[in-house]
């Protein structure tokens, strides 16, 4: 308990989402102790590792769940290749009336375990990012996380299974282009798992 009281000023000085490197910068004179400090915090349950073994953490505050901004920041720091897909991207672009219950994103890393609440990660092959570039398939970002555009979202969902999509009648089809959807499907067709 005494140790926790001694450590709490360092924890208070950190943002909700932080990395081991942030902690080392906060206590440069004891950078070797940063590891022990985080280990004690993890054991005490005051912080959690976002996606073990990556050195990214978030503070656990009872009654104060992580905001979308926090989750996005945590994911961006843990996964360089992050792109938002599926119903999550549609909802955040105002193209669906049905809200997602988990944030769905794609990454190039094969290790997909993530301790963030309400987040689901999917693996995509490296060629997927090239296909998205050729198709010009990004539609801005949400708290820094790049999002697929609507046509690519649909093409991606039909190419790779396992992502959540809203019901047909919840999607605003008037704002989608059939030509672009056909083009997007062509770009992703060769990546279809056999």
């Amino acid at each position, binding site marked *: 308990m005494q140790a926790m009281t001694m450590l709490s000023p360092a924890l208070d000085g950190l943002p909700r989402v932080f990395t*081991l490197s942030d902690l080392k910068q906060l206590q440069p004179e004891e950078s070797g102790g940063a590891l022990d400090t985080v280990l004690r915090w993890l054991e005490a349950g005051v912080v959690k590792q976002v996606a073990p073994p990556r050195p990214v953490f978030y503070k656990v505050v009872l009654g104060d769940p992580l905001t979308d901004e926090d989750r996005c920041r945590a994911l961006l720091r843990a996964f360089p290749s992050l792109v938002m897909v599926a119903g999550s991207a549609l909802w955040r672009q105002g193209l669906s009336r049905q809200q997602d219950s988990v944030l769905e994103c794609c990454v190039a890393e094969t290790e997909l375990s993530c301790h963030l609440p309400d987040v689901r990660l999917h693996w995509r092959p490296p060629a997927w990012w090239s296909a998205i*570039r050729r198709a010009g398939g*990004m539609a801005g970002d949400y708290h820094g996380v790049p999002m697929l555009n609507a046509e690519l979202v649909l093409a991606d969902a039909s190419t790779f299974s396992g992502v959540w999509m809203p019901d047909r009648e919840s999607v605003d089809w008037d704002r989608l282009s059939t030509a672009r959807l056909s083009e997007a499907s062509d770009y992703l067709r060769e990546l279809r798992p056999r």
Partner: protein
Amino acid sequence: MGTQQGAGKWRQQELGLEAVETRLQALQEYLAVYRASFASSGSADSHARVRVLRRDVSRLRAWGWYLIACRDGARWLPVVQWLARVFSVLVVPQRHRSRRQQRTLTMRHLSSYSLVERAYAAQEDDIQGRLLTLRLAQRQSPNDLRAREIKRLERQVDEVVLLRLAGLPEARQLTVICHLLTWTMALRSCLGLRLPLADVADR
């Protein structure tokens, strides 16, 4: 004694190369996302990010090539090291920008030395992240295999710290090495020759 020193040096070179490869992989992933964003938006911001990242990837690949040459004892290595010593006097140290100036920039331009040092620091953080996961599991249910792995990773952390603090050449010499080899790689690319670390960079 000599064998021990040789083994230690070899291990450090391997660790340095691993740090460069891991960092290259991460930079390539950022680059893939930024290029896709730039292709869609065409914004100046995305373009600047792509440009900076491509430059960082080239310099880091050049450093990786230098490490491979050190490991394999390449015959051209003494020439590069001599050139680095000679031309290092011409390198102007990068001016440190104020925090306010840094905030206004889209992306920070790193010196070659900072770029390599960051790769080693990121490797240190990655190993420590693995160490944390293992230590946590070990406290909950101890086992010998995991204990051995923890010991191995602890040794690796010490080695990477040593490598970062004392294993790098002088900053200006490192800058010359990175630039020389970046230009050589560009030339090799024009001639259609295979580039070093191509398998990491193009993954």
